[in-house]
């Protein structure tokens, strides 16, 4: 059975912004773009940097260090210098709550 965990509230993260979240010792990022929420691992697979400090465009989050891009829906590494995908998590909203399945 999937356990849903509340991580934030609707309205807490502006459009095209991200929020760093720590959960069970995991570094996660909550992203808000085009009216949807996405949760990914927060650490870039190329070199240590937080994607929540990055930039969102066209459904991808871009790392602030070297502009590696990851698809928010799939976690796929879209361009160099990253070659390894990031993990993405299932997300839903219930009322004003944003929940994820770890």
């Amino acid at each position, binding site marked *: 059975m999937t356990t849903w965990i509340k991580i934030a509230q609707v309205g807490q993260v*502006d459009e*095209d912004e991200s929020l760093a979240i720590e959960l069970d010792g995991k570094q996660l990022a909550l992203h808000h773009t085009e009216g949807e929420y996405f949760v990914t691992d927060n650490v870039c697979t190329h070199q240590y940097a937080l994607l929540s*400090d990055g930039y969102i465009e066209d459904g991808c989050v871009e*790392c*602030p*260090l*070297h502009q590696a891009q990851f698809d928010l829906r799939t976690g796929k590494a879209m361009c*160099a*210098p990253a070659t390894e995908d990031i993990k993405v998590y299932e997300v839903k909203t219930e009322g004003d709550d944003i929940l994820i399945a770890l």
Partner: protein
Amino acid sequence: MSSAVSSILVIGAGQAAAVAVATLRDQGFEGRITVVGDEAHAPYERPPLSKAVLAAVEAEEPSISVKEENFFPTRNIDLRLGLEVVSLDPAAQQATLSDGAVVDYDRCLLATGGTARTLPGLAPEAPQVHYLRTLDDARRLRNALRSARRAVIIGAGFLGLEIASTARTMGVEVSVVETADRVLGRVVPETFSNWLQARVAASGARLYLGQSITDLQLPADGVHVSLSDGTTLEGDLIVVAVGLSPTTALAKAAGLELNASNGGIEVDALCRSSVANIFAAGDCTSRQHPGHGSLRLESWQNANEQARIAACAMLGIDTAAAAFPWFWTDQFDCNIQMLGLPAPDLEYIVRGSMSPDDTNPKFIMLGLQGTVPRHALAVNAGGDLRALRAVLEKEIAIDAAGFSDTSITMKAYSKALLTSAAS
């Protein structure tokens, strides 16, 4: 046009070569691709050489391959390593390799990169003398640094400073000698040089600015360097990081036009050289940049962008123009990025604090021509810089007070500028 292209030869096997051949295959080119590189290694990323690779313990050296190991065989690319192209005949459209093989081509891409500029009296063969351009150079320097107590670095450009930073993290005493009176003097304003110099000093590295070498001794156990102000530096090793010479001997012999001032292979916006069917990409090239003259852009981004453009142009396929110039360096616990190109007449404004005491500094400097931003420098603010990119690309005028107001996020500020410019 593309139907006539059945074989492509890429000379050089670095970043640009790897990206070019990947683009060729991604664009549907099914013909023969031959890549010839003089190093023993498949294409690798150079930025980590002065950082993660240099600092790594041998067993844990990070993988820096541009493409995964099986990329070349699976994409049917004939990668020939450890070989040089000894001659290139543009009329016959063929190249002769150092093993005697002859390779015909319909299109040829020169991605020959460059070599470290050497200084007289500092032959790369001397055991205590180091240059850093290749993976083998980095491994050799790493081994030397691990047992060194003191290192002398010549050159306070990006590479020299990155090496100094890494050497400090390895516990090596570092002295950096620079002929100019400030670091990165050609690309950043004086206030930025001052900030970085304070950062360098705080790491324990010593900077000797405005100094030339008056005497140099290489005793068996190290190096003695005398400077113009009378200082004598002693080290176990010396690293020379005074720039790059583009590798152009083959291009020159084949009659390609080289730039008279920077020595790079002249290419146009589509990476075409002056000789038919020969293209060039990456560090070996020189190109006109409106308002800046001919430039050799030695950057990871330029190698990638020119590779993509050259690959498409060789096939006669339209592709997007080169991205806005972008560069990064990681040093002294800071990620420093540059967007756009510096110019002599820019006036810089700052967002954030440039206090030398900040342990985690974060600021952006924006170089304005009147009110139009042309050049940006970001310290630990890559996400903010990224938000500004469209503002620089579209040459949108900005107000200094609004830019510096940190109560508004950079994303919101840029978005507002773009929206009002579009309306």
